[in-house]
């Protein structure tokens, strides 16, 4: 099962390598990882996705919490949450009918064309991972040249928040 784990971490040198090292050391996979400072620049917020059963997820959360630099850890998948990922895709778009079809596809997925040349469209799309996967599938035949995905960022719904 896919897990989205959110971590509040001291923004210290070496802190990120401890998180990443832990996954390698304990034999867990990281599917995606995003990290950036928060409004408080002494803190970093990480979102990490992995796959595992309940037992594994519990161990991962506990092990992450054990790291000295870790302030808070939560498995977002346990509760109601929102996940978003940003993707940029460059697609070959030389002929007019393809350009039109691509444009309508981007509209359906509520994306944006953020760069245009005579040969290509670059599309920006935001959504959960499944939506981005679906877009890639939809335009797959049209000639994808390059895909850049940010990895998942997640936040819980409602009143719950991760803060010091």
């Amino acid at each position, binding site marked *: 099962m896919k897990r989205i784990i959110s971590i509040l*971490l*001291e923004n210290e*040198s*070496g802190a990120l*390598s*401890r998180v990443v*090292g832990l996954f390698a*050391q304990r034999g867990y996979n990281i599917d995606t990882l995003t990290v950036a400072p928060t409004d408080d620049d002494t803190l970093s917020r990480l979102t990490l996705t992995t796959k595992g059963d309940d*037992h594994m997820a*519990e*161990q991962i959360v*506990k*092990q992450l*919490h*054990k790291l*000295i*630099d*870790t*302030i808070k850890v939560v498995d977002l998948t346990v509760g109601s949450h929102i996940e978003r990922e940003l993707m940029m895709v460059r697609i070959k778009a030389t002929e007019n009918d393809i350009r039109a079809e691509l444009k309508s596809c981007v509209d359906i997925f509520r994306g944006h064309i953020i760069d245009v040349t005579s040969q290509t469209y670059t599309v920006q799309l935001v959504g959960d991972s499944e939506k981005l996967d679906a877009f890639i599938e939809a335009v797959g035949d049209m000639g994808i040249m390059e895909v850049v995905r940010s990895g998942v960022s997640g936040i819980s719904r409602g009143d719950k928040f991760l803060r*010091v």
Partner: protein
Amino acid sequence: MELLSGGEILIRALKDVGIKTVWGYPGGAALHIYDALYRQEDVHHILVRHEQAAVHAADGYSRSTGEVGTALVTSGPGATNAITGIATAYMDSIPMVVISGQVPLTKIGQDAFQETDMVGVSRPIVKHSFLVTRTEDIAATIAKAYYIASTGRPGPVVVDIPKDVTDPSHKVPYSYPEQVKMRSYQPTDKGHRGQIKRAVKTLIEAKRPVIYAGGGVVLDNASEQLTALAQKLNFPVTNTLMGLGGYPGTDRQYLGMLGMHGTFEANTAMHHADVIFAIGARFDDRVTNDLDKFCPHATIIHVDVDPTSVSKNIEAHIPIVGTCKAVLDEMNSLSEQMAIEPDEEALAEWWAQLDQWRADKGIYTASRYEESSGNCIKPQDVIKMLYKVTEGDAIITSDVGQHQMFAAQYYLFDKPRTWINSGGLGTMGFGLPAAMGCQLAFPDKAVACVTGEGSIQMNIQELSTCSQHNLPVKIINLNNSALGMVRQWQDMNYSSRYSQSLYEDSLPDFVKLAESYGHVGMKITHIDELEEKMRECFAMKDRVVFMDIVVDRSEHVYPMQMPGGSMRDLWLNKTERT
């Protein structure tokens, strides 16, 4: 405010922590620190012969006293030599601070001479690590390092200090923090009261209980509390390899060690138990054997200070996160308040069964091996003699292998912190330097290192350190001219193909070797001379004595769990199994 250089600040901070002894080895990147060390008298430094030994000695010092051990090494090879020692301490949760010199900040990342990314290299084997980048941060970092090392589940902390941060010409005001507070690190102390109540109720109602106590009880100085609870409830107790001494080894309720080389009664009792009270133990694979067959009838109560240990290998029915001491205190007082009585009848029946197991197949009710005769000295008999001669009151360190298991089985430890061994990592070469640490902490006590001719050669250079610093440890070398445990496995699993486990005629003359370092050497080849020689050895209180004892090479350690079996599936000797 007083102005001090980085080196001076480091030493002053160590003094303010309360550190009296540092084990170490100098080198380029640590020279500013060593100069500061030279110009004061509060912190005593012991020069070892290899950095691994510095860390093991600090480790032995810590295990025998409960204080945080301290080692100081230089960058590059100094730091990497320390790694095995750090990993040893990490696996056994030993509080320790290792300070390493580093190349100057300006050179980091340039593949400078003796540069190693120490924080990176040590990352998977430390509780935490610091790279100090400002002289002003040294004192606060040292305070944090000792706080982290000694609280929660203890462990080693590395403090890496670049050379320019300790530059003698750069002086800053010294201030040592009055207290350490970290928003990201607040270890749990007391366990959940409701859970503890449930646990006590479950214990009192148990019909076939076993207390399974590990190294956490020793580390947390909770032996008294454990003994009180066990005796109040009249429950049998088994200790892990790391927990030996946590419950008195000569007590009637003690079943002996459990696990791979545990006693028949301890392992069988675990298998049939209806309630297992695991405290400060982590269900290690050398204890549980096959997890799927582990203790099929038991309700598991698991107390540990580290949440990651709980339900990691075995799902706990009643998990409690807290220190052994705090939880046991609470349990002791709750057990008196609760209005339920233990099931005396069921317990009497259980004890009758346990005593039957002991009588049938226990190693303490009869000799389960062929006894020594003439020139065939059995290693077990050497340990029994060691126990007799030292009256069970020595600090025993060990290396790793058959001798370690024989010592664990046949020396009955009544007190905590008297059995010092590398349980988790299984580090050969640990015994001698660890003994030095114990001897320094307890100059008037007998300290013996039980070792083999394989292990002792991994840090034998420390015989020189013993001379220089007057550490009169006794070395009990069970010499069978083979890597005994490797050989045993090769006997059992590889049709006695002794691949690289025999020394042929290549061993040194250990008597001459000891003498060349200025020590006393003895060689024992006949069982009749063992007692007299050993008494002679321990009578020489101010000398290092190396007892080279030629033991029977064909001996195996039993009992031994069968791979893939349950806890009670054991080889009892070469031909008999359960």
